[in-house]
């Protein structure tokens, strides 16, 4: 198994601790002039998103995480499994509802997502920052009201509910920011 020595430590490194993959978000070096060096890593758990901080003595090593980023195309849902395909080799992967998290709200057939594999198993999926979704149901719009600060709940084609300005209508397309879940604009077909 590959490993990294303290002299390899840097931001962005992907390492494994107690069987879980982490990405280093901050690496610090402290050392009394004549004394022993302390390396401090702040890292994010790539599965759970939690942050961990660990200290290492100069010369210590940590296991590298076999982490790979691929482009995964969303194919379909089967029960509580979401099926994706690696666009480079057509390999298919299934993700559970838990692994999908909020991403289901933005998944249409064919959506290209960024997927992270740990030891060849998918751990996270990130949809594109912006997606265009069709409004399936909403209360009728207030004609002539172009204010964007008056909102109403709207059900989109994925089944998710999104807050949109009150002027949008059923059947229209809206662009949504997947990082915040917020409406951006209406889109013409």
């Amino acid at each position, binding site marked *: 198994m590959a490993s990294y020595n303290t002299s390899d430590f840097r931001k962005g490194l992907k390492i494994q601790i107690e069987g879980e993959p982490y990405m280093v978000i901050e690496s610090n*070096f402290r*050392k*009394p002039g004549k*004394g*022993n060096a*302390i390396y401090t890593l702040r890292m994010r758990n790539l599965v759970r998103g939690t942050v961990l901080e660990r200290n290492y*003595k100069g010369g210590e090593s940590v296991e590298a995480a076999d982490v790979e980023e691929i482009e995964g195309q969303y194919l379909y849902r089967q029960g509580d499994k979401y099926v994706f395909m690696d666009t480079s080799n057509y390999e298919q992967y299934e993700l559970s509802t838990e692994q999908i998290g909020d991403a289901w709200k933005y998944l249409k057939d064919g959506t290209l997502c960024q997927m992270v594999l740990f030891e060849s198993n998918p751990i996270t999926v990130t949809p594109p920052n912006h997606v265009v979704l069709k409004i399936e149901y909403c209360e009728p719009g207030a004609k002539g009201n172009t204010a964007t600060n008056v909102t109403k709940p709207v059900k989109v084609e994925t089944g998710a509910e999104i807050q949109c300005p009150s002027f949008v209508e059923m059947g229209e397309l809206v662009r949504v920011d997947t990082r915040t879940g917020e409406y951006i604009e209406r889109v013409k077909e």
Partner: protein
Amino acid sequence: MNQTDLATAWRPSPDWSEIRLRAEVLRQTRAFFQEHDFLEVETPLLSTDTVVDAEIEPISLSCGIEGKKFFLQTSPELCMKRLLAAGGEALFQITRAFRDEECGPLHNPEFTILEWYRLGDSMQKGMDFLSDLFQSLMNTDRAIRCRYRDAFLKFTGLDPFTCEAAQFAQVATANGLAAPAQLGDDIDDWLDFLLIEMVMPHLGLEAPVILYDYPASQAALANVRAEAIPVAERFELFYQGIELANGYHELCDPHELARRTAQANAKRTQQGRRPLPDGGKLHAAMKAGLPPCTGVALGVDRLVMLAAKKKQLDEVIAFTIDRA
């Protein structure tokens, strides 16, 4: 480096105000030493000898000169002591030193070091001179003197000279500190860890602080004074929680030098580092006679950083290693 990175990375990271401040700090430093009748000297950066420190890794290079292997100096200590043994009295030097693997907000593998020696100075006199220099350059109060042991007792509640690894580990845990798994039983490793985490952050927040009388196990090339518990006549200056200078009432005994070099090499080997050649030129100089003296090394980049009220070295070094 790709084109996008290069578009910004060619630039120096500090502002011109900091580049000018460095020139001013260097000018004032030279003036201070000249006023005190020190002679400015230059010694080589490349040498077949190196100081053998357990925790400092020199950068070695092969040059096309008689197929020899050279080290970039980790400090100008060896050659300056050779000058002292050959008749130097009060010498100072502003030069570059190199330490492999040392890279971080307060470390750059190549750095500017100010080092000086004066014959006849006791540790007390050496601390007084360091305090005067620092006061004059930084407009601070006089440095507060504090024994290493007293600082540890005050901020950790532990006696660094008598406690054992288990007690250090207990205090670390009680203070929510995650010690590196490999600290083990090495007392000096524990002392360094707790110094960084629990002592240093409190030092020199107003007036600078000089710690002195270090554990004999951390004497490096300082004289060890025989007492009930022997102490190293070593001292360090801290300001704003940052270590700036390290001084010794110097070891003059060549036999003791050989013993410590062997000991440092043994620790290096045990830690998986390469042993370093014991050179012999300093040993020969000390055999010929290094007169009693006190010497101090000060990190100039950190000095400029604190004078500029900055937090990281890349705010005052034109091109740190990542842009060099």
